[in-house]
């Protein structure tokens, strides 16, 4: 796959020599990474490998110390998180971070921020354009609620939703900005097998139906092997392997660093 994409679709996201340090600890170590437009790629690695940090660097939460990040060929590093969001990247969080005391639909409405234009003055005066935009925002939010399977739960406070619904809502909120690239941090964490399968299918639909490029961090190997077209393995911030699922499954470095010998043997047999 790596061979094929070099000449295939353009690279939507590319990191070159990206490094992030925390007081001596190198969380991400001169990482080279790219993902072609319309692909689904996974990042895996043991706990503390630097996966979430990688996401945080892309979305501008952290400033990178070295290297560069390109989004559709233009510089991303140095921009603020809200500018990056407006550029078309959105994400979900490993430990769900919804606006808990806002209703589900309000969460999604906030997600549409990058496309909203109305001003506070318009709101005070009740200008027709502002009202129109508000109505439109709400309509779109309802559509998205439907899309992520939360129909009829729009008026519930986010914190009162079930765990699975919260994960769904977070994806819905991330989709609301109509991103080109979406970063999912362990989307199936804490889900039962049935929910996991549903979520996997849902993620695939995102790419197939809307054409969003997806990078996901995932611990569940079945999910990873099932939907990824490309896998990058991190360990102590360094990339120790990358390639197709089949390659990764048999890669000895990965087996040692990540899966452990016994488990590795089992996975290979599968």
């Amino acid at each position, binding site marked *: 796959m790596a061979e094929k994409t070099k000449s295939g679709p353009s690279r939507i996201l590319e990191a070159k020599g990206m490094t992030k340090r925390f007081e001596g600890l190198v969380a991400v170590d001169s990482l080279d990474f790219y993902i072609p437009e319309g692909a689904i790629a996974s990042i895996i690695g043991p706990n503390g490998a630097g996966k979430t940090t990688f996401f945080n660097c892309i979305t501008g939460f952290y400033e990178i110390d070295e290297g560069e990040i390109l989004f559709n060929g233009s510089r991303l590093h140095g921009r603020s998180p809200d500018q990056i969001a407006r550029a078309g990247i959105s994400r979900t969080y490993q430990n769900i*971070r919804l606006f808990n005391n806002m209703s589900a639909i309000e969460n999604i409405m906030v997600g549409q921020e990058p496309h909203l234009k109305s001003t506070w003055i318009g709101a005070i005066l009740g200008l027709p354009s502002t009202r129109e935009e508000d109505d439109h925002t709400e309509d779109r939010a309802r559509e998205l609620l439907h899309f992520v399977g939360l129909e009829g739960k729009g008026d519930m406070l986010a914190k009162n939703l079930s765990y699975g619904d919260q994960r769904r809502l977070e994806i819905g909120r991330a989709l609301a900005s109509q991103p080109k690239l979406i970063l999912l941090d362990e989307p199936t964490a804490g889900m039962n097998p049935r929910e996991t399968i549903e979520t996997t299918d849902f993620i695939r639909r995102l790419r197939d139906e809307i054409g969003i490029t997806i990078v996901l961090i995932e611990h569940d190997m079945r999910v990873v092997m099932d939907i990824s077209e490309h896998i990058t393995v991190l360990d102590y911030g360094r990339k120790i392997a990358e390639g197709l699922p089949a390659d990764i499954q048999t890669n000895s470095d990965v087996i040692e660093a990540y899966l452990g010998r016994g488990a590795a043997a089992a996975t290979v047999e599968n």
Partner: protein
Amino acid sequence: MDTLRSQTSRTVLALGLLSGAFILFTGAVGMIAAFHEREVVDRFISLGQLLLLIAPFVTGYFVASRLHEYGEAPAQILVAGLAAGMLTALPSVVLLLFNSDEFRFLLFLVLRLAPFVAASAIAWGRHQAGADTQTVIGIWLLIAVLVGIVTFSFALIFEIKGDLRSVLVNIDRDWVEVITFDNRKDLPVGIATFGLVSIAAGFAGCMLHLMPNVPRRALIYGLGITALVGAFGETARLILQENVDRDTLREIFRRDTLRQHAALALFVISTAAGFFWAMYGSQVRQSFDNIDTSNRRRLNMIGLVIFVAFMLLLPWLIGRTLSDVAVTIGIFVLMGLGLNIAIGLAGLLDLGYLTNYAVGAYILAVLTSIGPLGLFKGTFTFWMVIPLALLAAMFAGFIFAVPVLRMRGDYLAIATLGFGEIIGKLAISDWLKPLIGGAQGVQAIPKPIFFGAELKNPEQLYYIVLVASLVCLFVSIRLNNSRTGRQWMAIREDEDVATAMGIDTARAKLLAFTLSAATGGVAGAIFAAKVGTVFPNSFTVFVSINVLSLIIVGGIASNPGIVVGAIVLIGMPELLREFAEFRFLLYGALLILMMIKRPQGLIPSKIVTHEHQSGVKAKLAAAE
């Protein structure tokens, strides 16, 4: 059975002594003696005596409800009520008996040593439980400091004049007089009276709880309303004065106090009304709920019309003195609504709200004054300056917001608190004296003129405050339901995520600060026009604390809550001078009570961030 007994006796002991400590404390700070000056019912009971009655009564009620939960028999509960009443009187009686200098000195020593003893005891316990040394020392320090602060403030109150003889200054003749129910000369009789009254009140509280639901609620309404009207007799008289003739008024009140037969009549009527409400209230409410939507909308409209008419007619209903109070309350409602934009909507804990208030007041003062400091000597009128005051306050809000935009929570609170202090110091400084008059302030601010008529009475100024508050209310409701409101909410909930959604948080926060500041500026300008002079003394940190407290007491982000909060915190001390003296003590008590019993405020808004709210309160406590 044994555990039940010990649980029961522990409850009685704890609640009884708590209420005893309350009586002792209110006596020691001079509250009981001060409240004694105010008669609730003519030649029958004073507010101070009412306090002595309420404590055991309420304790008796709570003891009964606890014991009822434990499943005690009514006879036992009644005995417990007697005990609770007795325990309420006990600490004060002890003090009464040993009211000598030596005893006071001993008490003083105990208070000074208490923190160390308490800290050591708890640290020892931890040590025995196997905590490591560092933790034990930490706990010791923490408790010594915490208890130290409490006892130090006690000691300060007792030691107010500095020498040991005056420890417990307020435990004096007046206090003895009240607490013995006017039997100071004959102490045994006095103590017996006090004890018996207390025991009877405890018993009565118990009885009340044991009653069937309907008469109980009726009695609670009756007693509550009578006590309230009696305590606020002056206010009640002022309102009645506007609406009934002199003779009737004289029938009901002797000067500012309710006459005995009037009190009795009021009690009977309110109990009867309470009885009907307790009987049929739920039915009435149910039939309201059953009204269909179109009728309900009509009913809501009628309600709104009545409310608006009431607000418009208010000055005529309550007369001049109370209109003045209403204007003060209104100014604080306006500030509350403004500060709520920052705190309630955007979650920005701004403790420097007085900055905007001061800017508005001084701008109006300097631009319109016809005194020596007036820049234009009357060319500018109130109406021209109001927009300027608004803009100036917005500008000040903007300037002070820029450096704190990156700060969050606690840091923001401290920084804004500092800015508020700076403004207070600037107002009194020599540097700005030529411009704003230093400690003397700016005098001779003319009243607003409306189509040729000078709005010099509070009845007229009231409308300015009303309109300003309504505008602010309108704006904050509109904004709250808009994109901007959602941005603020998101920032309040999780600023990082809000940024990641594409919200320019710096801009949204600036807007909240600036709009909130604008309201404060208008409030300040109205205040200046009302008072006619502007002194630095009016601009202390207590303005900020007052506004913040009324938001918290009323309910964060709740507009009706702000009005109620302002009435309770600003109106009550104005209406009951005896309260004013203990204003901050009562604020503190009320805030603590609210934190424990009703953290969402008196009239909570639908969506309240608990996390945010408790944060605000902790910081408020720190600020005080």
